[in-house]
């Protein structure tokens, strides 16, 4: 301890330790706030694109769920006979069989496809 030291403790702002600790915390909090970058309005809006994209994806998934789970969309089991309604497949089958489809068959094939849609 320096014996020549002048006692300046009456000027010490931290004599009231509890008050000083509170002051320190407040200044640190204000400092942290001051360091936070101030973003422009477009930048703030741009910051929302990720959550917005996630929300849209969730809504889309929810909308598709019933379709995906419907019996029409299930995968046929091995060996299961499935009615062919695709006009392309129908045309291919007729070609392979050397068959010449009648008008009614063509309309039925197209119509079934349209009805599916």
């Amino acid at each position, binding site marked *: 301890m320096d014996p020549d030291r002048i006692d300046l403790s009456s*000027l010490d702002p931290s004599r009231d330790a509890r008050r000083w600790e509170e002051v320190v915390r407040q200044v640190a909090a204000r400092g942290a706030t001051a360091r936070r970058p101030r973003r422009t309005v477009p930048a703030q809006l741009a910051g929302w694109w990720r959550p917005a994209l996630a929300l849209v994806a969730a809504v889309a998934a929810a909308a598709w769920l019933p379709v995906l789970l419907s019996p029409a969309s299930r995968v046929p089991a091995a060996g299961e006979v499935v009615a062919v309604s695709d006009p392309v497949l129908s045309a291919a089958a007729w070609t392979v069989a050397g068959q010449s489809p009648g008008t009614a068959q063509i309309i039925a094939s197209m119509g079934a496809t349209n009805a599916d849609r």
Partner: protein
Amino acid sequence: MPPEPSTGELVLRVRAGDRAAGEALVRRHLRPAYAVALAVLRNPAEAEDVAQESLVHAFERLDDCREPDRFAGWLVRIVRNRSLDAALRIRARGKAVDVAEAAAVGVAGDAERSALRARLLAAMERLPPVPREVVLLHDLEGWTHAEIGAALEISEVNSRQHLFVARRTLRAWLEGASPEEASHGS
């Protein structure tokens, strides 16, 4: 127990967004900032305000502190400038620093301490700014002459000289002698 991080380390951590480091930096430098502000303003309440505002400002501009290890000196310059601005504002308001009033702030019920504060502040009036800063940083904050020299941009020898003169003047005033007597007495 891990060693205390250096001021430079704390500055880098605050820059990286570490809130705990921010609190540690404030805890380490708020009192010295107050001492420098008090040296200019001679009013404890005003000095506390300026010290707090200066630290908040320093945090805001922390990226401008090119040498984190010399944060103390950088902060001292901010505090000095802000204290001088505050002194001008106070003067413009026509409110001269009333030492007795300044001494009474925050010490209600402690007449003896209040009187001592008033005498110390009155004695401080007799000192030029730099010796005032030196004696406050050394005898109130416990800084070494090396730390004071680095922060105030003076040599260690200069710091010792300022402290010697400041102590002699203050002691003479506190003991009732005039500063002229004190300066000629030794």
